[in-house]
Structures are given as structure tokens and as C-alpha cells.
């Protein structure tokens, strides 16, 4: 079965409501400020936004529905996408199809969260039914503990070392030093990474993203509309998602990308080595390595060797998480699922300023989300192209 292409879909105006460590504002403030930035950067009137995709953890008890009233929108297409780190590409897929079908003319896609002293613990304690009942009581380690178990299994299966994870983290910090939006910009050496205190072994402090507040967004509309508005845009060459892949794997050593990778590259008419930059979802480096494998940049189990052979900085052999990723930018809740996408857009639009990848024509972006019990359930990926 052939999937329809994403022809005539323009993705424009990557915006970020700057991340901050903590905030007194609510999640709706971050989302509304992001919407305002989309209007300011596009020059369109709020009434022209007739489609909306929203992702947020701390908007609770509200959803995208309540946000329409909060922000004075009357969309005829509305998506609430609680898919965490996979939500950016998934919002893009939903918005692109709505635009192609004529169910919406301009879709605003926004994701963001607030952060305060208790928000992270509250989120972790009641993240899901399975997690609340069968994970949290065993030490309340939260995502650090869940990913530590996955990382432990992955290291035993593949021979990955802390140095391999550290190489990704150190390269991302180098990239972050060129991104004024990144919260963590002090230089980082591999020795400093290795010397960090243990959090949930084998994970140490610098393996763990820093929760913060912030939001990201972009607009999706027909190419004809973007041209009429004189808005630079990128194209969607291919996009996939998968949920609860490989449920019989006893422990997660792969995500859903492996199921849909061939469809992604076929749809894009490209291969894994035709992209100039890669943005993976780096809540932990082990997951970035699973994405490199799952999306075909290297074979299953070979990401450690791949990492040893490549340089992931802006001028390196494979620019990766060029804005610093979540490990250096911070994890603003659901905005973490948008971070790589808006960074890839900036690179392809030539707006990455001090960290521009030379000749960036094609970008691979992937997402991963939702440790419902023992593994992340949502996988997504997209290939974007310069128009």
C-alpha cells in the first residue's frame, strides 16, 4: 500500500518561547505566547488560524479544547496529542493531512509546559496507570530509573559504554554553546561527563535532561498559501509514526522506527546517508543510539561503533542535535517533542545563525515518547527538505 505524499504542504515559522528553569506562569501562558510568536513571525491574523495541534503535560486538567477558549481561537480542526517526545512529527503529520484535505487552511502546532518545584514530581507520580501501580512504588526513580534499566540492557547487548553516551552529550554541549536558546552552555569535557554523580546507574547526572519551562511551535499550510504570504518554508518528504511496537520484546532495545524505516525512506525518495543533519530525541543518549539504528544510519546493535566513528558537532561528519538537544537546551515537557523539528527547520531555512550547517538541504528528525510502563511506546520520524 502506497502512502500519499505530503505534496503542497509548507511548514513555516519555527518559533520558541525561550526556556527557563522554573516559571510562575501556567502552561497555557507558554502556549499562548508561542501562538503570538507564530502570528508575529508570519504576519497573519489570529482569525486565519483555523487548525490547531496542542501538546502539553502541565496544561492538565485542560486540553487543547480549553486552550481554544483561553486563547480566543475558533478552529475547525483540533488535535490534542499527548505523545510526549513523539508529538512534534505527529502534529506535523496530522496538520499536513488536514491541510491537504482542506479540513484546515492554516494549522498552528504548539507544544509547551511550565515547570515549578512540584510539577515534575506530580507528573512522574501519576504519569500512567501502569507506571503509578507497577513502577513508581519501587523507588520512585521516575524516567531516570526506567531509562537506566533500558540503558543497562542496551549496554550489555551491544557493548555501548558510558564514553559512547558521553561523546554524544559532549558534542551536543559544544553545539549548544552556539545556541543562545540553550540553557546549558558551559563547556563540557568527557572527563567532566564521566565524573558526574550517579543518579540511577548506569545513568549519571549529565545523562539526564534538565526539566524546564518553555514552548515551541510552527505553522502548516498549503505551499500556495505560504508563497502568497511570502513565508519561507520547508517540505515534508516523508513521515512515520508507530505506537507500542514490538510488544513481545522483553526489554526495549529498539523502538518503532525499525518497523517503518523503509516506508519513510521510500516515501522520501532518499536514503539515510542523504541527509546533512539529524535531530534525535535525546532524553537519554541510549535512545538517540536506538534511533540511529532504527532509522538505518547503522545496523541494529552497531550504534556504539557508529558513534565512535563520527563527529556530531556542527562541522562534523554527521551534525546531530545541532541546537544542543534536550541534554543541553533543557526539556520543556512536551516541547521536547518539537525541539528537534524546529531546529531542523531553522537549519533548512538558513536561520540557524551561529550554528548553521553548511549546505543543509535534507534533515532527519525523530521522536520518542511515553514510558507508559517499562518502555517508550511512541516513535515518530520525518524527513524534511529545503523548498
Amino acid at each position: 500500500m502506497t502512502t500519499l505524499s505530503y505534496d503542497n504542504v509548507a511548514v513555516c515559522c519555527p518559533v520558541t518561547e525561550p526556556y527557563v528553569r522554573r516559571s510562575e506562569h501556567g502552561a497555557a501562558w507558554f502556549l499562548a505566547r508561542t501562538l503570538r510568536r507564530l502570528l508575529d513571525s508570519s504576519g497573519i491574523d489570529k482569525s486565519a488560524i483555523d487548525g490547531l495541534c496542542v501538546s502539553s503535560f502541565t496544561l492538565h486538567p485542560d486540553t487543547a479544547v480549553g486552550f481554544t477558549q483561553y486563547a480566543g481561537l475558533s478552529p475547525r480542526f483540533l488535535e490534542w496529542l499527548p505523545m510526549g517526545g513523539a508529538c512534534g512529527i505527529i502534529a506535523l503529520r496530522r496538520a499536513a493531512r488536514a491541510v491537504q484535505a482542506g479540513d484546515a487552511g492554516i494549522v498552528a502546532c504548539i507544544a509547551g509546559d511550565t515547570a515549578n518545584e512540584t510539577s515534575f514530581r506530580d507528573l512522574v507520580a501519576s504519569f500512567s496507570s501502569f507506571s503509578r501501580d507497577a513502577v513508581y512504588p519501587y523507588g520512585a526513580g521516575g524516567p531516570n530509573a526506567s531509562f537506566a534499566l533500558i540503558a543497562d540492557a542496551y549496554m550489555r547487548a551491544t557493548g555501548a559504554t558510558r564514553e559512547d553516551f558521553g561523546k554524544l552529550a559532549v558534542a551536543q554541549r559544544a553545539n549548544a554553546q552556539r545556541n543562545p536558546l540553550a540553557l546549558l552552555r558551559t563547556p563540557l569535557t568527557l572527563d567532566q561527563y564521566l565524573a558526574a554523580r550517579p543518579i540511577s546507574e548506569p545513568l549519571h547526572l549529565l545523562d539526564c535532561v534538565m526539566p524546564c519551562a518553555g514552548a515551541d511551535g510552527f505553522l502548516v499550510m498549503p505551499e500556495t498559501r505560504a508563497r502568497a504570504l511570502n513565508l519561507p518554508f520547508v517540505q515534508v518528504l516523508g513521515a512515520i509514526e508507530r505506537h507500542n511496537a514490538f510488544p513481545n520484546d522483553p526489554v526495549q532495545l529498539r523502538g518503532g522506527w525499525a518497523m517503518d524505516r523503509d516506508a519513510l525512506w521510500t516515501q522520501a525518495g532518499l536514503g539515510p546517508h542523504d541527509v546533512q543533519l539529524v535531530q534525535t530525541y535525546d532524553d537519554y543518549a541510549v535512545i538517540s543510539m536506538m534511533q540511529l539504528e532504527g532509522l538505518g544510519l547503522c545496523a541494529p546493535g552497531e550504534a556504539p561503533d557508529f558513534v565512535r566513528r563520527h563527529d556530531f558537532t556542527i562541522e562534523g561528519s554527521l551534525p546531530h542535535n545541532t541546537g544542543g538537544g534536550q541534554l543541553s537546551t533543557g526539556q520543556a515537557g512536551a516541547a521536547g517533542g518539537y525541539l528537534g523539528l524546529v531546529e531542523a527547520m531553522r537549519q533548512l531555512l538558513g536561520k540557524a545563525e551561529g550554528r548553521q550547517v553548511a549546505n543543509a538541504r535534507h534533515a532527519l528528525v525523530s521522536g520518542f515518547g511515553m514510558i507508559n510502563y517499562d518502555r517508550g511506546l511512541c516513535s515518530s520520524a520525518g524527513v524534511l527538505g529545503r523548498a
Partner: protein
Amino acid sequence: MIRLQRCADCGRAQYPPREVCGTCLSEMLHWDSADFLPGRVLARTVLHHSNEPAMRPHLPLTIGLVQFDAGPVAVCLLADTILPGHAVQVRLNADALLEAV
């Protein structure tokens, strides 16, 4: 005693418990009871941080993923000497915490 949910229709065991069978969606579920469940450790971590202040006096705490011989995988507290690959017996303690011995 420790209990594991099993489907009367398709025979599959499942954990965490739910109101229907995750394999065949039958609601004919019953509980297998035993003194312990045999299994094998898939992964372990030593926790040095907890999101719950009440847990912090118990740190560091070793937990692991254990696959029961019956199939399902559970997050369990582990004795410090237990490593991935080890065969274990999972018991339910009176304080409702699982402990492998």
C-alpha cells in the same frame, strides 16, 4: 503469596494487571497464586535519587526488570548481589514490595 493474572481463554499471563486480556481481549481472567514466581533478571539499576522524599532514606536502592518464566516482565526490588542473567524467585513482601531472593 504472589499472584499473577492469567487469561482463561488464551492462557497468557499478564502484568501489570488489567480488566481484560491484553492478548485476546477476553474478560475471563483469573489469578495464579504461588509462594514465589521464578524468573530471570533482564536489567538492573542502582537508584541514588528518588522523586519521593519518603524513599530517600532507603537509597541507594537496587531495582531491576525481571521476566517471569510465565512471560510477563516486572519492575522489582533486587537484593544487591543479583545481576542480569541471574535466575531469581520473586516474592511479595508483607509491605507490598516485591523482593527477589
